[in-house]
């Protein structure tokens, strides 16, 4: 069931109706039932995976809770309060127990993810290795495994919950149905965001009372998301797909256009989807974390990643980057390196962690080497630009540029956008790294002319081009407006008739200029004769 479909609209409408008809204390159950139904409709029997993930998470959390109670019996409060060593001992004991449970849990949930998503990749690489060194490639792998919907998202969300429990940042949820709802909540199952238990649970589990504000805000968000997806993203997608598929037959200028449009398409699609997610959740009064903060206005790659797919970035930061970078082992390694060179010593843990995180981020996006390369490039660019910062500062001082001058800002923003667009070549190159390099080479060396008829062959007619550009311009203006105040607040500041007109117009624009329906796939029929 796609987000932008009548069936989804009806599904949500039914869910909203039931939600507010049921007594407050059972409302979360309505969400759970509809979430499971949604998953079942999308995946059928593969719902078993998400159910198992919820179950494993619940059992682990309850075991951890048990250990937390046990420690209070074994080390009574009076004793630990008086004796600092005793307190430390209790803490160590608990930590060890909790760690064991956490590791088993993570092995199970990430194990499932690895087998389903990465086994093919691993076997292919083992076979490559065998081919290189032994001249055969016999391992057959597990065959084509079905990747359950949203597994990368719900696995990370469930794992985050357990890790938070281990760090005692949250209390365990004792109601298994509520926990299952946290893992399966349908608006965010397709494309995230990866919510934190602390952020999502209060509004998710409370039976929210009917408030017009929630409905209104939800609908506005959905409208905005649908507009982004239908007017911009879907219109550009055919061109991006085709021109990257025919990359050998088009010159570098088309490919340059392709990667720029791909960035915009991806943003419109992904952020539009997130708008729909947030809006849908909002209809139930549930508050889902924002996943984008106008990323194309970032002045550096590092900043970009704090503003694009925010929840994935913070997940990796909190659960991988920090634990690795400040781990005792890496810190000690850093000290050892320091004896040889203090420059490298200071950076050992930082950069090791960065590289690991970005290799994993790459793998998260897909089980292929090109994604790993893409992730690593991101990491390397961040490390390099951190090192170059003094140089930039020196250059700016010498040239008399001010950090906050408009030109300097614009330059940084455009540079970042271009870097990110070029990196995405790896994302686009479905044939692998070689294709990515070939596209890059063509963009750099084979620039040429562009004709409208060729663009149309590639799936972008003149009209589509005009609408896409107009849509992007509008999106840009809206983003600029959002700088100080969200567009929603701005709208609410207008008078009712004004809002009414804007809303009606937006719906009309989506209906007319949306890229959907037969008119865009079948030949236009009106001239057919009988």
């Amino acid at each position: 069931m796609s987000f932008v479909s009548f069936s989804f609209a009806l599904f949500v409408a039914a869910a909203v109706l039931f939600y507010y008809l049921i007594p407050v204390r059972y409302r979360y159950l309505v969400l759970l039932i509809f979430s499971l139904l949604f998953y079942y409709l999308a995946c059928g029997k593969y719902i078993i995976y998400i159910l198992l993930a919820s179950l494993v998470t619940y059992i682990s959390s309850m075991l951890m809770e048990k250990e937390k109670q046990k420690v209070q019996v074994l080390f009574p409060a009076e004793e630990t309060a008086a004796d600092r060593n005793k307190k430390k001992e209790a803490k160590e004991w608990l930590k060890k127990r909790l760690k064991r449970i956490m590791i088993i849990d993570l092995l199970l949930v990430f194990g499932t993810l690895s087998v389903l998503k990465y086994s093919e990749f691993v076997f292919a690489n083992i076979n490559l290795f065998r081919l290189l060194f032994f001249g055969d490639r016999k391992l057959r792998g597990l065959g084509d495994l079905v990747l359950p919907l949203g597994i990368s998202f719900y696995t990370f969300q469930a794992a985050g919950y357990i890790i938070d429990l281990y760090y005692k940042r949250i209390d365990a949820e004792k109601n298994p149905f509520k926990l299952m709802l946290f893992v399966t909540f349908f608006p965010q199952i397709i494309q995230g965001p990866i919510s934190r238990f602390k952020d999502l649970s209060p509004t998710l589990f409370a039976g929210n009372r009917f408030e017009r504000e929630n409905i209104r805000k939800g609908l506005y968000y959905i409208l905005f998301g649908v507009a982004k997806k239908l007017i911009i993203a879907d219109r550009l997608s055919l061109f991006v797909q085709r021109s990257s598929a025919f990359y050998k037959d088009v010159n570098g200028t088309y490919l340059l256009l392709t990667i720029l449009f791909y960035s915009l398409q991806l943003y419109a699609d992904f952020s539009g989807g997130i708008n729909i997610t947030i809006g849908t959740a909002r209809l139930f009064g549930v508050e889902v974390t924002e996943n984008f903060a106008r990323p194309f206005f970032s002045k550096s790659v590092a900043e970009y990643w704090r503003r694009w797919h925010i929840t994935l970035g913070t997940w990796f930061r909190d659960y991988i980057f920090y634990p690795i970078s400040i781990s005792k082992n890496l810190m000690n390694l850093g000290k050892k390196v320091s004896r040889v060179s203090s420059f490298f010593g200071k950076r050992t843990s930082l950069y090791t962690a960065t590289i690991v995180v970005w290799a994993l981020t790459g793998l998260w996006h897909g089980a292929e080497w090109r994604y790993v390369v893409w992730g690593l490039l991101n990491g390397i660019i961040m490390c390099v630009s951190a090192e170059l910062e003094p140089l930039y500062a020196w250059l700016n001082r010498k040239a008399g540029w001010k950090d906050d001058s408009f030109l300097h800002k614009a330059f940084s923003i455009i540079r970042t956008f271009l870097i990110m667009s070029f990196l995405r070549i790896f994302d686009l190159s479905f044939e692998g790294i070689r294709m990515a390099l070939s596209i890059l080479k063509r963009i750099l060396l084979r620039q040429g002319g562009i004709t409208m008829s060729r663009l149309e062959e590639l799936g972008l007619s003149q009209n589509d081009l005009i609408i896409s550009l107009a849509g992007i311009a509008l999106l840009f203006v809206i983003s600029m407006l959002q700088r100080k105040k969200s567009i929603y607040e701005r709208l609410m500041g207008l008078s009712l008739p004004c809002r009414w007109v804007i809303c009606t117009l937006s719906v009309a624009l989506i209906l007319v200029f949306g890229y959907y329906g037969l008119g865009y796939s079948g030949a236009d029929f009106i001239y057919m004769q009988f």
Partner: protein
Amino acid sequence: MKRPIYGLIIKSLCVLITAWLLFTVLDRIFMPKYVEENTDGNVTAEFYRADTPLDAVFFGSSTVYNAIAPDKMWNEFGFSSYTRASASQTIWQSYYLIRDTVHYNRPKLVTLDVSFMKYGEDFYEEASNRKTIDGMKLSFDKLMCARDSMWEEESLYSYAFPILRFHSRWNELRAEDFKYALRRPTVTYDGFIMGFRNDPDIENYEVVEKEDYSFPPKAAEYLVRIMEYCEEEDIPLLLMKTPTYINNWFPEYDRQLEEMAGKYRNVEYVNFDYCADIIGLDRRADYMDGHSHLNICGAEKFSGFFGKYIKDRYGLPDHRQDDTYSSVWNERYTRYCIDGEIGKAALK
């Protein structure tokens, strides 16, 4: 406590009304108008403009709307009728159109052309779906008709809200789309479409023998539903075959249809192909489109014959002395004559 609920209801109603208005306006602008060309696209809708009760309504594919002229029959025989045929109207579409027709203007006789009995499940033309169905008023029958006619890529919603299909016409909109958005002029002659072409060459069309002459299940199923429906509603049904000169009809079909019709009290089957000589149809002058349709000359001959047949056979009344009828129908006949003569002059 009560006030907020009222406010909510009023606001929701406002939203619904705005949405409805928006869809209506957009539908009206974006739907093809079929006024300056492809006027057959208006046959389904103009049925609702019959200003008097109808004595007979004729269903079938394009052969029918090119062959049966209600205005001409009014003038000669005095009964009121409408040709609710459409391009490639399949048997299942005829079924729903008959139901729709009976619901709005119950006729004393229904006739159905059986040419499309040859086409079943795998017959599909989006454009004819649109021309046939879009003109129907929104009803359960319309949606069912769409559901049974649709191909996988089509969406049922787009039949309820045509803007979902036609929005891609935004760059093809012409003056006529706005001019006729609110009200389209009447472009058919009570469902009859005048053909002003002819095929003077006599070709001998090749006869392609078939291995199996049984009707496709979907067509057969809906023919049975039509016959049962007419029986239930107590409306006589005439299954007929409009004369054409292409040799794609076989006696095996006649035999099966006679057998099927024979099972019902008020259904009969007549193949007018066999009457072509009695009617006086001239292969050189009266046909068009590769002898698959009658042109205006052929249609006038056929309407004269066919009108007399159904009037005598089914005892259709003569309203020519009735003012409520004649005030409407005489005017229509005049329009028909003027436009017909202009066209016929051009044909010669």
